[in-house]
């Protein structure tokens, strides 16, 4: 059975740029898919196609059981979109913004008003509800934007870089809200440039670059694929490096790397925590004093480098500095992509 979001062979070109170059996606109901990639990878274009804002050149997409191209208006009744920029009217109050969106979702004025009140409470905006949104902080605007996307409690949500430009505290708050939503059964497609965010929120991750999905899987699967885990040891005295090296060589699946000046030894392993315990016992038995030891798993950053040959951040710079807020590309058709 196809998932709540399902796409096959999506292609979209803007001039010479293939923003989407044959993208397949499947998000089972009630799960979160993280679309991870640098600026210009095609993440926003994918969201725009799935939310009926953009027609693909070819391919098909089904959202909430409805064909996006054949029944765009029905799809719109089933989705909520929180775009890359907090899309709220800054001269309207928070309450007026939500009331308007509710009415445009075809709720009655009264139902929309009640719902607006509930959401303002839930998103901790009740106190600021009757102030124009331009007096809100960045985090408050983001919350209002998310509230607007949730007016009808849509079963399928799309969030395009929801935490871009937020400070760590606001990011954490937004993460909590997102986790609460998903716990309630919402299917979510989320794009992000933050590897940490995909790791934290998404069940499955698709790594995209140049309009293609270059890898997919759970965070753990991707990390394993990138070269698995390694044991890292820092010994207390320089003269302990030699015996420690001998121990690690016995457990390792490859060469032991030694950094003499930091007294750090690293070796690729398989076997996880159980193996780590054995390594510790063996080092102890040989009288090696340990300052630090750990099982290091590759970060998504490592994943990205091994998949693309460059880091996500570097790719962002290469894409012409289109990162961040207020760069003037919000309303452009190919804003993100064309910046290449």
């Amino acid at each position, binding site marked *: 059975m196809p998932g709540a979001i*399902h796409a096959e062979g999506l292609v979209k070109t803007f001039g010479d740029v293939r923003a989407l170059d044959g993208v397949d996606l499947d998000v089972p109901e009630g799960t979160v898919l993280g679309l991870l990639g640098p600026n210009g990878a095609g993440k926003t274009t994918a969201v725009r196609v799935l939310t009926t*804002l953009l*027609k693909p050149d070819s391919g098909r997409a089904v959202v909430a059981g409805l064909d996006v191209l054949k029944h765009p208006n029905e799809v719109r009744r089933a*989705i909520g979109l929180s775009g890359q920029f907090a*899309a709220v*009217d800054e001269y309207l109050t928070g309450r007026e913004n939500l009331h308007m969106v509710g009415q445009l979702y075809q709720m009655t004025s009264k139902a929309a008003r009640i719902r607006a009140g509930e959401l303002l409470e839930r998103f901790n905006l009740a106190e600021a509800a009757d102030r124009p949104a331009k007096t809100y902080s960045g985090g408050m605007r983001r919350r209002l934007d998310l509230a607007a996307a949730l007016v009808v409690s*849509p079963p399928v949500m799309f969030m395009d870089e929801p935490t871009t430009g937020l400070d760590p505290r606001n990011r954490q708050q937004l993460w909590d809200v997102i986790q609460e939503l998903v716990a309630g059964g919402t299917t979510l497609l989320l794009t992000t440039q933050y590897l940490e965010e995909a790791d934290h929120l998404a069940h499955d991750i698709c790594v995209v670059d140049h309009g293609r999905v270059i890898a997919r899987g759970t965070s753990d699967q991707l990390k394993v694929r990138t070269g698995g885990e390694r044991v890292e040891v820092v010994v207390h005295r320089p003269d302990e490096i030699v015996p420690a090296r001998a121990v690690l060589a016995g457990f390792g699946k490859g060469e032991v790397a030694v950094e003499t000046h930091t007294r750090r030894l690293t070796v690729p392993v398989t076997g996880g925590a159980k193996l780590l315990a054995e390594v510790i016992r063996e080092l102890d038995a040989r009288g090696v004093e340990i300052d630090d030891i750990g099982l290091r798993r590759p970060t998504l950053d490592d994943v990205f480098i091994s998949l693309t040959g460059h880091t996500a951040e570097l790719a962002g710079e290469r894409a012409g500095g289109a990162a961040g807020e207020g760069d003037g590309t*919000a309303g452009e*058709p190919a804003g993100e992509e064309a910046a290449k």
Partner: protein
Amino acid sequence: MSTVPGTTPRLAAPKPRGGISQSVADSLVIARRNLIRMSRIPEMVIFGLVQPIMFVVLFTYVFGGSIEVGSAISAAAYREFLMAGIFAQTVTFATAGAGAGIADDMHKGLIDRFRSLPMARGAVLTGRTLADLVQTALTLAVLAIVAVLLGWRVHENIGKVLLGFGLLLLLGYAFSWIGALIGLSVRTPEAATSGGLIWLFPLTFISNAFVDANKMPTVLRHIAEWNPFSATVQACRELFGNLPPGFEAPGAWPMQHPILASVLWSLLILVVFRTLAVRKYRSAG
């Protein structure tokens, strides 16, 4: 409705009424939103008023004594002649407002939000242009009062005068759709403001708005006579009783039948630009 086998669509939002009643309701929601905005940015409404008042004062006192209209050269005759032109110019300047507003909505991502909602397709633009119409009507009312204080008088019955203002509002409404199209086509609100204004200067100046078109060089005179803007100006002069003594309407058809010509021009602009703008909106991005 055909769906994908094996899945049941889960629709959260109520079923839209569809058709005209939904279009009207959605347009009114958007119009209300834009009117709230305008009430919170009063300086924009005020600047919209200052400009035409400045034009009236400048034209009357700087040029008034030296521009010949009909057989008269006097500031008083020119003031009467001028007002229809200023009114018409004022309503067309609403174009820039609609354009800038819609470009701003695009820029801020609001158009994307609206387009992702199950709302009537033309409602975002219709709502905006309706709100602009309300603002234009207010501006016209204040401007008319100022004009009366400066000595402008009408010499026809109230029915004709109201018809004249009706033609002005229709022209302004039609032009705000040109603004909507510009707003959807440019990248920034600033571009929409200047893009909405520059072409209005030749349009309003190569017309009968400020001078007697009969006295223009032949080529310009023909342009002026067929300029959609001139038809409304001429119609208003007739309906307000502001034609100067000794003035003869040019022979071109729109100048001979200015009321009908004004309505036809405005409807034509409205239909063409509404169609183009709604199409542009649907495919925006």
